């Protein structure tokens, strides 16, 4: 049986762990509040860009722009958005798993945003073309633009034939879901969830020209989607960390209760034993 001193030490160490998890929970929830406002601020931009692109893609069915045409797939690029840090439940692992399953039968190269995704894929000996750290928690549009441009360049130069993006969708504060979307090439059927105007769009004028407009807008679209996904993932990371730390704190107090019970039992046992010894000793003297 563990000695009293050992148990006392355990209680203390679990207690200090609990303090840490509690603090992390509080930090995560205050950061989450901020991340959620950011998320709701970027949402309109995200939504309207998607809608505009949907209309353009549907309206210009005749365009033979390289961004709109599928080609033979030899290599695929999968971008993964994870956090830089752990202790956030299954958040990082879930999105990494989704990324691995994005294109199981083809040659894949990964672009990771967030240290955890890089570690995960490197551990499994995957090909990583680029990895970024230190931007997951506070994404800004410029980072998204730089990454978007790099990835699109890979596509332009024929290094990869398709681009996927794996990120985490924010369902609510207590639930989120990993999601994989196809970024390139663009297909009209990617946008079936977007409502477009019924009016005949073939009459749309493109200024200066259809080709130029697509050249300009599609890279922009990629950046926007990437930025939106980064902001959304950041909110997810914080919400999963908050939930994970909340249950850790709860588990710690349960553990402390159990240990306290054990401690008292052991202490009682020791006292009983001492009394028995004293009684036994005095009996022997008298006898």
């Amino acid at each position, binding site marked *: 049986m563990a000695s009293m001193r050992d148990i006392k030490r355990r209680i203390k160490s679990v207690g200090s762990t609990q303090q840490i998890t509690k603090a992390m929970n509080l930090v995560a929830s205050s950061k989450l509040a901020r991340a959620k406002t950011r998320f709701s*601020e*970027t949402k*309109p*931009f995200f939504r309207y860009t998607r809608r505009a692109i949907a209309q353009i893609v549907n309206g210009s069915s005749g365009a033979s722009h390289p961004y709109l045409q599928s080609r033979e797939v030899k290599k695929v690029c999968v971008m993964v958005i994870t956090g830089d840090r752990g202790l956030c439940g299954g958040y990082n692992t879930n999105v990494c798993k989704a990324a691995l399953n994005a294109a199981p039968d083809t040659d894949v190269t990964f672009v990771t945003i967030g240290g955890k995704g890089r570690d995960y894929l490197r551990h499994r000996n995957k090909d990583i073309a680029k990895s970024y750290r230190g931007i997951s928690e506070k994404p800004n549009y410029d980072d998204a633009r730089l990454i978007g441009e790099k990835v699109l360049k890979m596509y332009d130069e024929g290094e990869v034939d398709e681009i996927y993006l794996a990120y985490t969708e924010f369902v609510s504060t207590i639930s989120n879901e990993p999601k994989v979307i196809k970024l390139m090439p663009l297909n009209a059927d990617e946008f079936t969830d977007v409502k477009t105007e019924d009016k005949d769009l073939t009459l749309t004028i493109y*200024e200066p020209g259809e080709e130029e407009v697509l050249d300009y807008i599609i890279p922009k679209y990629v950046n926007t989607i990437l930025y939106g996904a980064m902001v959304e993932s950041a909110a997810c990371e914080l919400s999963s960390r908050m939930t994970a730390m909340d249950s850790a704190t709860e588990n710690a107090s349960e553990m402390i209760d159990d240990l306290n019970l054990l401690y008292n039992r052991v202490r009682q046992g020791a006292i009983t034993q001492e009394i028995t010894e004293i009684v036994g000793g005095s009996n022997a003297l008298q006898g």
Partner: protein
Amino acid sequence: MAENKIALKVITPNREMFSGKADMVILRTTSGDVGILHGHQPMVTVLDYGVMRIQNEGEEDKTAAVFGGFAQIGENGIIVLTDIAEWADEIDLSRAEEARKRAEERLSKKSADIDVLRAELALKRALVRIGLKE
């Protein structure tokens, strides 16, 4: 008589900057200024760095600096999607002047082709801001 106004939304990654109606909206596209009225044909156009002007009769024009992006004109009016946009009263003139000086210096040196493009863009941005202020 039906209201002859066009709906306009201006959206940047960080905020929904404007949502309302206007008699006419003037945008700086890559092929020049265009004024858009109610009932315009569907159009998608790429925007240049420049001033956007929102006109309403009986009101003072609202002006904003818009840096790139694109505008989509459809049944629901105009949607301007841009990376950066600032209202005239949000612009800090002295900062813009400084930025202009910095960019001009950098361009005049032309030492090792360090981001000539970036300096040019910075200069363009500064000039738009200053132009709007004056």
